[in-house]
């Protein structure tokens, strides 16, 4: 038992940094960006957001983000009109490609931003996703 604990098998892998309470608790996109230390991200075509323009349901909105900015170390995802706009931030290292695919929630039609950080600078791509009201379903 003691041995297992010492080997780290009983404890989950520790995250590199504590969860960013301030940024994830921010109620506006700007405050969220400030919380992760980003201001004045430059619009770019090198960050790609692959997502449908119309989501049949806001509970699940699939989004795929790729950064072609050389030296990208992180990607943040922000849904501007969500009650808490910052959805996720991913740090890439040791061979991880700055690419991620995930499903996010959206309360209403909104801009979605992907912000990549590379070499101390930040770059942003934006896409509007329309969230629609559904019928019976399935």
């Amino acid at each position: 038992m003691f041995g297992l604990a010492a080997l780290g098998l009983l404890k989950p892998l520790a995250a590199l940094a504590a969860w960013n309470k301030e940024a994830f608790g921010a109620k506006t996109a700007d405050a969220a960006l400030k919380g992760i230390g980003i201001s004045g991200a430059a619009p770019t075509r090198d960050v790609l957001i692959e997502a449908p323009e119309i989501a049949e349901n806001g509970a699940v909105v699939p989004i795929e983000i790729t950064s072609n900015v050389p030296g990208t170390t992180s990607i943040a995802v922000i849904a501007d009109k969500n009650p808490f706009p910052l959805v996720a931030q991913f740090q890439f290292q040791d061979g991880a490609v700055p690419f991620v695919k995930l499903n996010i929630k959206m309360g209403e039609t909104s801009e979605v931003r992907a912000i990549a950080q590379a070499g101390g600078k930040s770059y942003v791509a934006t896409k509007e996703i329309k969230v629609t009201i559904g019928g019976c379903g399935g």
Partner: protein
Amino acid sequence: MSRMLLTVAIFLFPLWARAQDVDAVLKRDFHARGQATMDRIVQDRLQKVCTATHDNPPADAAKSIEAEQMKTIVFPAGSLLGDWKRGERLAQGGRGLTWNDKAGAPADGSCYNCHRLSPAELSYGTIGPSLTGFGKQRGAGEDAQRYVYGKIYNAKAYNACSQMPRLGFSGTLTAEQIKDLVALLLDPASPVNK
């Protein structure tokens, strides 16, 4: 009248046995839940004829049903134009009459489920025709008001086997609510007519 009934009877005879089977199955396999009580499985004449003819009733049967249904429509006195803003909310909502809706609670019109209305709403159904610009074409005069009110109250008065529910006749919507929907369709200020 009797000739009409004979036509319908001959037409329906081969289907009569099957209809009896279905009634017996529904009685055995369904149960009341909440406000959805078992009296709802009993078909009225219209439902019987539309089922038996796959919604293509002989012309004289259709005519007689439509006349019968027309008599059920109660038109309130005065203007039939309510408030289009309330109408838009009713058109968006879909509550009412299901076994998990509270009995007697206000219901909605479920309009966008089947119709396009305000062009701003992207999520609209196509079971019924698009009604965008309806008031622009028909005007908002007394005849148009009566037609729209009557159609919402009892669509079967205009088309015997229409797929549109009889929203007034079934007790789904009140006279005030139907007037709000008439305004949504006809009021020049309504987004439907912008």
